[in-house]
Every structure is written in structure tokens, then in C-alpha cells.
């Protein structure tokens, strides 16, 4: 009981402290961010939201509150707690939070909510979705050009439309180079598919046996096994979400970056400047929401020719000359995936 009291007191203090600080800086925002299962330092999706939130604090001096989800049951509770405590905006990353968001947001019409990677159609919710197919197209193009065997492959996490969209964009990019075979595989159909590096490695090995020499992993924690198997076999891997090039320098062609940090930063900033807009916000190549990573770890692997081609494709997509098909619009992919 004493422990509980201490906990409550501490929470109250921290809350009050955060609020006081926000007021003292005169900003309109009192932001809060919720990290999805997988944890704040997952070197991927959640860590990107953390980076965005930290950048906001560094720029404005306004602190934010945060919560790391430990189980599905906490989704609604966490949202409600932050809204009740007067936090604005409340940002949550992860498609699994849509149901909780749709339940909680109508109860707090004056609070601005942001959900990343999913659409919740409510007047006070901004839904940030990424055009993963555009970024995947670019890394697919690089994969197609880097491949010597003419076969590239994809390993996805859980079999959901979001991940199919990565695969479809990747295949479209690879096939734009010429006669390239694309092999695709999903790790599984439930949540464990995000955390099964052993299986990811096995899938990659069988793809390598089938001739693949570039593999793109869009599979959360499973990707670690995929990229390691690629490095062990001496072929190229492509990372996802964050810049993962550092993991196996020399065997990482590039990473498909999804700028979740920008989405979080923009949300915080917009509320702070009184410019918040609800509705769907699509972050594609034009908005710098997706892209391919180029750093000291992979610059020797990307030839001038490849760089020219990928930059031309990027410009063409932004200009609308190349339209990359979004798998989610009709649940089909226009190109063949073996």
C-alpha cells in the first residue's frame, strides 16, 4: 500500500512538473508520446519517434511525457491517461492502436491526437501514413541494379497489407531495372513474426539458395536474422525504418528509411505553433517521409550510375511521372512476385 501511495505521489509530481515546465516556457504544446510494443530503443520504428520527440525538446525546450506500452491491454488506458492529464497533442505510433484511438478520441474533443501508420477518421485525429511503396521502389531499384544474379528477395514480418505494400513497391522498383526475378516471403501471420530472427535467417538462406543476392528485410526484430544471414552468405541486405547500414558494413546495400521522427516532430511543432490540422497526412518522397539511406557505411557500394538512376527515379516519382502502385488501395500487386 505504501508503495502504491509513493507511486501515485511520484506520478503526480512528475506530471505536475512536466506541466509547470511547459507553462513556464509559454508554449502551447504539452506533448505526450506513446511507444508501441517493442520498446523505446528498438533501433527502429519506436526509436525514431523517440528521436523526433527529443529533437522537439532540443529545439523548443518543451519537455514531453512518454509511455512505453507493455501489453495490448494498456493501449486505451495510456491514451486516456494522457488526455485526462491535459496533454496535447497525444502522439502514438503503430497501426495496432487504431481501435483504442477510435474509442478514446471522441471523449476528448479538445485534445489533438496523432496516430502514425494507420487511419482513424475523427475530427480531432491526424492520421499520418507513409508512402512505403515509394521508398521501397527506390531500394528495389538499387537492389535490381546491384544484383548480379538477376534475383532479389524480400522478407516481411507479419502478413498484413502494410508489409505487402513494402514488398510490392520493392518488386516494382527492382523490375523497373530490367528482367529481375523477385522472391518474396512473409515470416508468419501473428505477432511473433516480428520477433523471430531464427526463422528470418532460415527464410533468407532458402532465398539465397534460390539465387537471390540482395535481400530486403521489413520484419522488425526478425530482420536482424535476415541481415545476419545475408552477411554470413556474403550477399547484400537492405534495412528498414531506421538507418541500419551500420549493422553489417560492406554487406548492407542501403536502408529504406521511414521518417517517423519527422512525423512526431511535426505533430509536436504544429500544436506548439497553433497550426495543427486533423485528417490524413501522407508522407511520401516529396514530404521527406520515406527515402533511402546513404552514409559512410554504404557509399562505396552505391555506384555513381546507381545514384544517378535512383535520384532520377525519386524526382520522377515526386513529379508524378512514375506512379508506384499502393498495394493497400486494391490489395493486389501489378508485378509478379515468386
Amino acid at each position, binding site marked *: 500500500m505504501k508503495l502504491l501511495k509513493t507511486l501515485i505521489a511520484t506520478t503526480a509530481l512528475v506530471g505536475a512538473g512536466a506541466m509547470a515546465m511547459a507553462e513556464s516556457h509559454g508554449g502551447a504544446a504539452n506533448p505526450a508520446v506513446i511507444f508501441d510494443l517493442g520498446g523505446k530503443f528498438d533501433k527502429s520504428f519506436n526509436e525514431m519517434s523517440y528521436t523526433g520527440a527529443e529533437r522537439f525538446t532540443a529545439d523548443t525546450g518543451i519537455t514531453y511525457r512518454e509511455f512505453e506500452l507493455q501489453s495490448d491491454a494498456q493501449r486505451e488506458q495510456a491514451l486516456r491517461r494522457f488526455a485526462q492529464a491535459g496533454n496535447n497533442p497525444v502522439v502514438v505510433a503503430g497501426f495496432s492502436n487504431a481501435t483504442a484511438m477510435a474509442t478514446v478520441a471522441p471523449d476528448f474533443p479538445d485534445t489533438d491526437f496523432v496516430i502514425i501508420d494507420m487511419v482513424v477518421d475523427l475530427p480531432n485525429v491526424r492520421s499520418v501514413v507513409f508512402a512505403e511503396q515509394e521508398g521501397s521502389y527506390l531500394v528495389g531499384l538499387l537492389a535490381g541494379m546491384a544484383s548480379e544474379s538477376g534475383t532479389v528477395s524480400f522478407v516481411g514480418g507479419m502478413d498484413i497489407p502494410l508489409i505487402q505494400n513494402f514488398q510490392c513497391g520493392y518488386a516494382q522498383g527492382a523490375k523497373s531495372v530490367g528482367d529481375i526475378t523477385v522472391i518474396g516471403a512473409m515470416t508468419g501471420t501473428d505477432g511473433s513474426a516480428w520477433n523471430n530472427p531464427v526463422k528470418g535467417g532460415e527464410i533468407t538462406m532458402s532465398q539465397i539458395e534460390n539465387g537471390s543476392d540482395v535481400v530486403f528485410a521489413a520484419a522488425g526484430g526478425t530482420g536482424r536474422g535476415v541481415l*545476419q544471414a545475408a552477411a554470413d552468405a556474403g550477399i547484400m541486405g537492405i534495412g528498414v525504418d531506421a538507418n541500419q547500414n551500420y549493422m553489417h558494413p560492406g554487406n548492407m546495400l542501403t536502408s529504406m528509411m521511414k521518417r517517423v521522427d519527422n512525423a512526431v516532430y511535426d505533430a509536436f511543432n504544429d500544436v506548439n505553433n497553433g497550426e495543427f490540422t486533423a485528417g490524413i497526412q501522407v508522407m511520401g518522397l516529396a514530404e521527406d517521409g520515406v527515402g533511402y539511406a546513404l552514409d559512410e557505411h554504404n557509399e562505396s557500394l552505391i555506384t555513381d550510375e546507381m545514384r544517378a538512376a535512383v535520384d532520377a527515379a525519386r524526382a520522377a516519382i515526386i513529379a508524378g511521372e512514375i506512379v508506384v502502385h499502393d498495394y493497400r488501395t486494391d490489395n493486389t500487386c501489378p508485378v509478379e512476385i515468386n
Partner: protein
Amino acid sequence: MMDFLTNDLLLLSDSAVRNAIPLLLACLAGLYSERAGIFDIGLEGKMLVAAFAAGAFSAIAGMPAYDGGWEMGAWSVWIGLGAAIIASTIFSMIHAFASITLRGNQLISGVAINFFAAGITVLIGQHWFRMGGQTPQLREGQRFEPISLPFAESLKDVPIVGDIYYQLISGHNIIVYFGFIIVALTWWVLYRTRFGLRMRAVGENPGAVDTAGISVVKLRYSALIITGILCGLAGAYLSLGTAAAGFGKDMTAGRGFIALAALIFAKWKPISAMGATLLFGMLEAIGNKYQTLDLGFVVLPGQFMQALPYILTVVILAGFVGKAIPPKAGGEPYVKER
């Protein structure tokens, strides 16, 4: 046809062996425990904690001193293996204490072990490495490398025999070979030693064993120590012997439960356990290689392959293919009559 045999079937079998090893070790671990009359659904948790200990200690042992490591070089992987066995045995002893000494419910204790392992691994991992519960990517000397058996290279070109020797038998890591040795060893212990006879007896009729003046408690504790060691090997294989190259949250992904299914499928016999886990490993390999399996008259989705181990277990339990009778005293705490 020859091409299919040499390429696809051999590669599938190779993958099947790799998939089967953690299942085989966990299955044998369960065999010792259940044959001694202690149900153990905590195999998953013990494997998980072993995988974590292996990944964490191998990483720390191999790290340079300025990062707080021990600079043990090629010995790191053995430190990891030792840590895995110790961690898993500690968990096994918790289970033993709850179900033998305290005469608690063995199923509940097993479930508790699973939850405890899922939580504690991520908690400690985050505290030590700050990577969202993952351990650092393991490098050379921190992982088990494939062993090339003698004459593998020179026999490579001999048809069939050479192919089988080079592709299937050679080129695995040491735990794989160890796993098959343990099958033989288990058979010998179980059917040819006094300890094995007593252990089997204590699972069927502990009262009779007690009457003969042999300590039931001691026998059961010994069996569970062996269970702990074998689960430790299984977990160490996952993080040190596969492409995962380290620990990731929940990386066992249900393998402990498939091992239990295999144990029932094998009717609690060691040689059959090897057959069952190799079969399950083969099913997984097929599911990994062919996302959909076209048999000509019907197209099977990959998920079917993943579900098959469970379906087969249910079929066996339902008594369609022989009868699976568990050790008679399993699940019952032994109370000495006064």
C-alpha cells in the same frame, strides 16, 4: 529428377536439421522431466532465458574492455553457452522447488516460468544494453561457426554420397552434432542404466520406488537438472548457433510448445523424439521455402505447414495413429504416506 534430389531435397533436409535442433533439445529436456513425473510446459521460458543469457554473456565476454567487456575472444561463445545452461538450470530448479518440494500445481508453475522469462529477459536486457531488450549483434568468436567435417571438400564431387556428406552432414555447428549424440545418450540412460529405470519408475509409480527405499524427491530433482541443461543448450543454439546472432525479445516464438507437441507425438521416447522433431523441422523448412505449395491438384498455403505440427499432435492425441499414453504419475505431486 536428379536435380530435384541433389538440390531441393538436400537443401530442404539441411534446413530441416537446423530447424529441428532447438526442438530436439527442448523435446529431450521435456522427456527427462515428464518421464520423472513432472509436467513441464515451461520449456519455452527456460529456452528463452537461456537464449538471453547466451546472447548477453557471449556479447559481454567478447566486448573490448573499454566497453566494459572481458576481451575473451574465441572463448566468448563458450562463456555464453555456460551462462545459458546455468540460467536455464536455475529456472528449472524454481520449477522443481515449486512442484516437488512445495507440491504445487506443475502446470501453473510452468506457465509462471514462461511469463517470468518473457519479462525478465527484456527487463535485464534493456538495463544492460539499452537496445529495447535486444543484445548486441554477435561477431566472430561470439557465435558457433559451422564445422567442416574431414574430407568434406574432397568428397564434394562424388555423386550422391558426396553430396549428402557435404551438403547435409558437414557444415553444421557443434550444437547440432551434440544434439544427435544426446539422443543416443538419452536412449542409453533411459533403457540401459539403473538411473534410467528408476526415473521411468518414478514417473509411473513413485510409491513403489519409495517403498524400494529410493528417494523420489532426489530422482525428480536430478531429472529436472538434466532438463535445465538441455533447455540451456536449446536456447544457446537459438542465439549463438543461428542467423539471429544474439537475443531478441520473445525469440523462441513458440518453439518450446512445438517441442512439447513433438514429445507427445513421439510418445515420450528418445529415438521417436528425433524423428518427430526432424519431421516438424522439415515441415518448417518446406513452409519457409515455398510460401504456397502447389501439389498439382491442390494449392496449400504456407500457414498450413506451420499448423501441421499441432494438427498432427491432435490427431495422435485423439488416438487415430496409435495411442499416446503419458507417464502415469505425471502432474501429481508425490505425497509420502504416513
